[in-house]
């Protein structure tokens, strides 16, 4: 009985540690509300750490030229994302017209994109670290192909 308790405690501890590790890079949040023609609501929240892991398993041929096209821009992307993580929160872009409002902000360690118009509302929140590690993965895939 004591042994079973120890095993259960071990499993629970491992699970908690695993969940903690998976959530350590923050969460990706996608919230889409469509009002017309029908009301649809899509809400997804997932650990950001999964994205670079999933990217690792994408077959190279399915990426096409994506990696090749991305590679020359990596030094710029790297510099931008590194500096973005260090800066305080700010509104990067804010575009308004009579029907639509688009806002791109840096909040905490995340890049937040909000689009609002008459028919739908879209909210996407992604940790900057996740964007960085995912793009690094994609660029590395190209170098693996080139080797």
């Amino acid at each position, binding site marked *: 009985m004591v042994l079973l308790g120890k095993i259960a405690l071990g499993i629970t501890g491992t699970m908690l540690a695993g969940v903690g590790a998976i959530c350590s890079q923050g969460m990706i949040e996608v919230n889409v509300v469509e009002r017309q023609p029908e009301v649809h609501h899509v809400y997804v929240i997932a650990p950001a750490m999964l994205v670079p892991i999933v990217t690792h398993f994408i077959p190279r041929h399915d990426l096409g030229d994506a990696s090749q096209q991305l590679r020359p821009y990596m030094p710029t992307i790297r*510099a931008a994302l590194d500096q973005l993580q*260090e800066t305080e929160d*700010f*509104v990067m872009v*804010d575009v*308004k017209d*009579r029907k639509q409002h688009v806002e791109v902000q840096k909040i905490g360690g995340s890049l937040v994109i909000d689009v609002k118009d008459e028919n739908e509302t879209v909210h996407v929140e992604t940790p900057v670290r996740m964007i960085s590690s995912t793009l690094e993965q994609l660029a590395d895939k190209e170098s693996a192909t080139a080797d």
Partner: protein
Amino acid sequence: MRKATQLAGALCLLVASVSGMAASVLAAPPPERYLHVKVEDAKEGESVNVNLPLSIAEKILPTVNKGELRDGHVTINKSDLDGIDVKGLLDAIRTAPDNEFVTVKQKDEDVRIAKSNGNLIVHVRSTGQEKQNVDITIPLKVVDALFSTAKDNELNIVAALHELSDAGDALLVTVQDASQHVRVWVDSKSSSD
């Protein structure tokens, strides 16, 4: 004697706390500076605001190598500067007192170039079919930084941005026409409100 020791101790504590506070203030990083671009179109009811931390621009620019932009430097076509001693010209402007250097009056356009309070100022007033006012104010330190490279036909954009981040809040460019209003300025606010 005991009172004097107590007083000296209190004074030492006060000096230590004040110097500690001063050290923490001095050690605090300078506030982030932002380059703001705001375009408003009253006729279309549109507005676009872009806010870019100068530190990000300073880090990104040296990594971009495309066209005329290399390592944070922009190369100007040599023929555009043929026979012009830009550095000599800037030196003359820098040492000259505040003054209006160039005034061009045409039928439907007035152009004025002046130096005022350490800034280079350009005003363009178009009164033709497309009425447009353009005002550009650039701190001379930024202009100097722009031409600080060894080569005469290169603009050092990174140095200019660095100088801009050290300069105070400044309205750099305004363009106003019949419907659109464009503003470019630098300050420490993270949004354009």
